[in-house]
C-alpha cells in the first residue's frame, strides 16, 4: 500500500478551481516531485494534503488512514512534516529553539508537568536539546544555533526549516520549493540533502521549479496545469511528454 494516496482531490476558491480532481499515490521510500507553471495549484495541493486547507471534494489517505476531518496538528503527529514556500520561521526564537519546537510531537511534557517541573521533564528537555543540536550540526548550522532564526540569511533559514521538519521524525516530508531563492551551489547542496534524507527512510514529496534538480533527484514526477494532472511518470518519460514540453516551452 502506498504511503500517501490522493484521490480525486478538488478545491475551489469562489469560482476558481485551484485543484481539479487530482489523483496520485506516493510509494514509501521515493522522491516524488510535483511540477507545473505558476498558479497551477501546487501549494494548494500541499495545503490540502497537510489539511491546512479542507478540500471541496476528494480524499487523502496517509499511512492507511483517511485524513477526512483531521486537523493539521493531528496530521503532523501522524508523521507528515512540511516546509513552506515562503519560509515560516518562528520569529523571536533562536535557530535552536525553532528546531526544538520540531520535537514537539516526539515529546510529551504538558502544562501541569511543565509548571511543576516534574522530575521526568528534565531528561526529556535535555534529549530535545541534544537532538536539535545534532540536526543543526547535520545541516551545517551548529554555529548559528543561538542566532535569532528570522534574522538569518535566506538559505540558512531554509536549512533551519528543514532541520525543524526533520526533528519531527516524519515518514513523509512535503517540501514546497526547497531551492527557491538559492544559488546553484546551494541548490546542488539541497539536492544532495534531499537524497540523503530519502536514504534515511523518509519519503519525500516536493514542489520545485528548478528542472535540473527535479530531473536529477526524483523517482517520479506529477505535472499539474490549471489544477489538473496532465502527466505522471519517471523523469525520462516526463521530459519527452509532448504536453509537458508544450506547457514549459510554450506552443
Amino acid at each position, binding site marked *: 500500500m502506498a504511503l500517501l494516496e490522493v484521490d480525486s482531490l478538488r478545491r475551489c476558491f469562489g469560482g476558481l478551481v485551484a485543484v481539479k480532481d487530482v489523483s496520485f499515490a506516493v510509494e514509501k521510500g521515493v522522491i516524488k516531485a510535483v511540477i507545473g507553471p505558476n498558479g497551477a495549484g501546487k501549494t494548494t495541493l500541499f495545503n490540502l494534503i*497537510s489539511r*491546512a486547507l479542507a478540500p471541496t471534494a476528494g480524499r487523502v489517505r496517509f499511512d492507511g488512514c483517511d485524513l477526512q476531518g483531521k*486537523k*493539521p*496538528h493531528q496530521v*503532523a*503527529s501522524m508523521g507528515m*512534516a*512540511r516546509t*513552506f514556500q515562503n519560509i*515560516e*520561521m*518562528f*520569529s*523571536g*526564537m533562536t535557530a535552536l*529553539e*525553532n528546531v*526544538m*519546537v*520540531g*520535537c*514537539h*510531537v516526539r*515529546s*510529551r*511534557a*504538558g*502544562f501541569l508537568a*511543565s*509548571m*511543576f*517541573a516534574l522530575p521526568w*521533564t528534565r531528561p*526529556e*528537555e535535555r534529549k*530535545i536539546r541534544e537532538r536539535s543540536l545534532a540536526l543543526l550540526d547535520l545541516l551545517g548550522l551548529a554555529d548559528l544555533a543561538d542566532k535569532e532564526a*528570522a534574522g538569518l540569511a535566506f538559505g540558512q533559514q531554509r536549512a533551519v526549516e528543514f532541520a*525543524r*521538519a526533520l526533528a*519531527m521524525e516524519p515518514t513523509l516530508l512535503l517540501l514546497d520549493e526547497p531551492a527557491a531563492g538559492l544559488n546553484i551551489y546551494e541548490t546542488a547542496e539541497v539536492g544532495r540533502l534531499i537524497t540523503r534524507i530519502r536514504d534515511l527512510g523518509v519519503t519525500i514529496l516536493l514542489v520545485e521549479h528548478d528542472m535540473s534538480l527535479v530531473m536529477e533527484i526524483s523517482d517520479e514526477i506529477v505535472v499539474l496545469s490549471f489544477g489538473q494532472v496532465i502527466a505522471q511518470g519517471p523523469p525520462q518519460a516526463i521530459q519527452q511528454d509532448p504536453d509537458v514540453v508544450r506547457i514549459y516551452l510554450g506552443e
Partner: protein
Amino acid sequence: MRRLLFLIPLVLAIAAVHLLCAWTGTLYYLTQMTMSAYYSLLVIGLCVVMGYAGQISLGHAGFFAIGGYLAAAFTTRNLAGLQDALPVRMLDAAGLLVSGRDVYGGAQLVVTPWAACVAAVLAAALIALLIGIPVLKLKGHYLAMATLGFGIIIYKIALAVPYFGGADGISEVPPFNLLPGLAITGGSANRIANYYIAWTLVLLGVTLLWNLIHSRVGRALRAIHGSERAADSIGVDTARYKLYTFMLSAVFAALAGVFLTHYNGGIGPSEAGVMKSVRYVAIVAVGGMAHIWGALVMGTLLNFLSLRGVFGTYDDAVFGAILILIMLFAPEGILQTGIMDRLRRLVSRREED
C-alpha cells in the same frame, strides 16, 4: 535546586522593601505593597497570554471579579435560613460550612474561605473555558473586542445582581486562614505578616509560570506567537494551547481576586471595570510583553503608585496614556524592540534637519 536561583533577587527585594519601610518609619506602605502583590499575580498570568501565546484579553478584570465576588459572596451570604435544604446539609456534612453570629447576634452559616476559594477558581476556569473556545478563534482586534464584551458583561452582572451587593459590593468578608496561624486579612496588626504571605504567593506564581515558559509548552506558545500556521504544521495543537493558557491566566486572575478580597475585607464593582482590564494590559505592555519580570516590576510599581494616589484623578488616564505610547513606539513591548535604537534614530533625524 539550581533552577530556582532566579528567585534570589526577588526574595532580596521583598526583604529590602520591608527593611527600608521599617527604617524610614513608613511601614504603612506595606499595605499597598501587599495589594500590589495580588494585582501582580493577575498581571503575570496575563503576561503569559499576551507576551508568550500572543493573544490579548481586555476582560481580565472580569476573571478577577469572578474570583473576588464569589469568594466574598460565599463567605458572607448567610445560609442559616436554608439549613434544611439538601445542598446546604451536604455542604455542612462535608465540613465546608462554618457557623457563627452575625453583627446583630443572629445565627450565621457561611461557606469556609478555602471551599469558597476553590469554588471561585473552578468557576473562573470553567467560564474561561466556555468563553475561550469560541473567542480564541478570533485574532487581533476581534479578540480584543470579544474579551472586552465579556468584561463588560461581568461588570454589569456585579452591578445589577442583588446577591453581589450592587453598587456597594460586598463587605465584612472574613479572614482567609491559609494555614493555621497564617490568615490573609487587613488591619495594621497583620500588616507585615500579610506582606510576606502575599509575596510568597507571588513567588509561587512566578515560579510556576517561569517553569512553564522554559519548557516544551512555553516553546510551543512562543511558536504560536511566531507563526501559527507553522506551529500547526509541526503538530502543536494551537487551539488547545491557547485555550489552556487563557484558562491558566483566568485562574491566576481569580486567585488574585480571592486573596485581595479577603485582604481588603470586601470587593466593589470598580474591580470588575473595563478600565481595570485596560490597566492590566497596559502594565503587561509596558513591562515588555514577553517578560514575566517586567510585568512583575511594572505591575507592582504602577499599582503601588496608583494605590498611593500619586496619579490623583488622572489615574485611569495615566494607564490609557501608557497604552497609547507603547502602541505607538514599542508595540512589541519596551524591552523587546530596540526602542533605544528607535529613539536614537529619532534624535539623529532631528539633527540632520
